[in-house]
């Protein structure tokens, strides 16, 4: 056979690459538990993954950057909008995204399933994935946060706002779009009203679609409110 050498090159090239590939696969399995905090991979998290698959969430959203690009990436959504935000999105998408240019369907997710989804997203958000995606970067600051800092200076209130509210609200164009932009919110509410609104939005704006931000400490509420009251 004239092409014997060519055939051996084919075989050798393939086997070398295969060996590297399988070796690294073994290494990945060895390290993955630590990298993903598999000890926290509880039955509830797995139940959440079943809901995620069963409701075809991945056919519109990406997670770890894979899937479909129609809707926001959900890798760090738990850190971005919190448990209350996630529940508002999945239980009442028609309300939460009423004014959006793109709608999320109501998929008939039950309260229990929503809780499982939250557990799932919380677990996913802690996977050590080299700090992707850039918009939710933890180490260093995300681009949105840097811009805010440039415009507002780093007061305690601005810092807490970045962490707790920016997944849904923007200032100076930076930040999320579930809630309205808050550039001029100081003309509408004073600091005391905003403090009240954070914990109980409907008490200030009847029928407000904003989920109560119960996870924000009293001191942070105060600081955020003072910061926002200056936005005029």
């Amino acid at each position, binding site marked *: 056979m004239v092409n014997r050498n060519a055939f051996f*090159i084919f075989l050798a090239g393939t086997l070398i690459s295969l060996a590297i590939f399988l070796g690294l696969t073994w290494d990945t399995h060895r390290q993955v538990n630590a990298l*993903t905090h598999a000890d926290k991979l509880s039955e509830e998290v797995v139940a959440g993954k079943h809901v995620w698959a069963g409701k075809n969430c991945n056919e519109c959203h990406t997670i770890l950057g894979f899937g479909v690009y129609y809707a926001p990436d959900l890798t760090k959504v738990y850190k971005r909008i919190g448990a209350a935000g996630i529940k508002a999105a999945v239980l009442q998408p028609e309300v939460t995204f009423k004014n959006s240019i793109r709608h999320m369907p109501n998929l008939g997710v039950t309260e229990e399933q929503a809780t499982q989804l939250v557990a799932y997203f919380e677990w996913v958000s802690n996977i050590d994935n080299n700090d992707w995606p850039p918009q939710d970067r933890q180490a260093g600051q995300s681009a949105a946060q840097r811009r805010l800092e440039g415009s507002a200076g780093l007061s305690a209130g601005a810092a807490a706002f970045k962490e707790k509210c920016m997944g849904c609200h923007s200032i100076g164009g930076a930040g999320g779009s579930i809630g309205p932009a808050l550039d001029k919110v100081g003309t509408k509410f004073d600091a005391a009203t905003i403090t009240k609104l954070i914990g109980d939005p409907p008490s200030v704006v009847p029928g407000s679609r904003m989920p109560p931000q119960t996870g924000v400490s009293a001191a942070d509420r105060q600081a955020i409110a003072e910061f926002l009251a200056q936005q005029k």
Partner: protein
Amino acid sequence: MEQTSKVDASVATATTTQTADAAGGAIGRTRVGTALVPYASQRVAYWYFVIALALFGLQLLVGLWLAASYAFTMPQGLENALPYGMTRAIHTNLLVLWLLLGFMGGTYYLVPEEAQREIYSVKLAYLQLIALVGTGVTAIVGFLFGWTQGKPILEIPVPLDFVVVLGALIFLFNVGMTVLRGKKTAILGMLLGGLVFLALLYIFGMPFYRNLTIDWYYWWWVVHLWVEGAWELVTASILAFVLIKVTGVQRKVVEKYLYLETALFLFTGLAGTGHHYYWIGAPDVWLWVGAIFSAMEVLPIIAMVIDAFLTKRHEGYVIKDKVVWTFCMGTAIGHLIGAGVWGFAHTLPQINYYTHGSQITASHGHMAFFGAYALLNFAMFWYAIPRLRGITRYKPSLAIGGFWIMSLAVIGLGLAMAVAGVIQVYVERVLGQGFMTAQLHMQLWFKVVMFFGVVLIAGLAMTAWTMLKGRQEDSTEVEAVEIV
């Protein structure tokens, strides 16, 4: 019409000893029914091709709907009734289904000519076609009701997966038996190897993985190792077969390149899978291995283009079949642009960090699939279908026009998505504005995508019509493709 003189040596000797055999005489000269093929069983390929073309058409119509969902605001009620994701699943599954049917049809067409015997069982070939198309239709109807496994691209629910595996096993058995009992060539070996590899990989997409990281890890064993591994072997073999036929270049030469190119494809492509493991929670070593090996994935593609061009220059043969030749060149160059250039553009971690999972990815997906696999299938269709229909002479203008319309439409569509992608990366990921803010700025570009989508559909309609209904051209005054 003159008798062909440029059939390669091995086939020519074989045919002289075989002319009296029931299968027919010299290559391409005997009519079996209306078909002009040496082996009657090659005719099963026809139905694979026709169904593939129809499914491609359907895929494109659904594609328009997807682009419209991006370009305009769909009302909440519509989104509830038919979620975007289910239509998108139909788009991608139709793509995979028609490409695979095309490969299988191509295989059934070329295996008898290579192995120099009829297909082991024509009945099994039809049975398998029915099983696969039946599964496909069931799956797509199921998607409309949300019946899926919930994994992008591999949505087919597990029970249907088993039918797919069964269909694949029948296929491999049928082709394997034919090859075992016939002549064994390098092309057949590579083709069969690629097909077995392809089928094996599918299994890794079937289980439910508890850990999301592991889930995506094996998802790519299907998706990446298919398009950048197994499918490369299959298409390289099909391309080698077609090139031997249309240029008459020596088999020895083609086989040598076949081995060297596939060696490079697998050497770079296997470890190159790492370019999908940067951000999933896998060890950091993948950043290096993925970057280095996947950057080298461009080399075999360049080699393939050079090789295809040399085929013509080196041998100094007249290209008899201008149409098939155009599609062969088209797929080589389309592969280079879509997979080589577009793939390389976002394969290094420093860039991929920003472009990962954006419309840049979608742009690359379109250019690569079309250039590398859709055009390759079309090259085979244009080789086989006129013969299967018994056409010996036809005017090439519409076929070549179809090539240009479709190719330019996909380039337009891919560029529009790329612009949308750049906007997305800049607004969402560099400026840090909301996802939907970026989408708002991208809507215009999806209108452009829709425009090119319509052009593509027109190009396909024209191509399919010419291919399946185009007439024999008997007047010798007219310049025509001669099937010899």
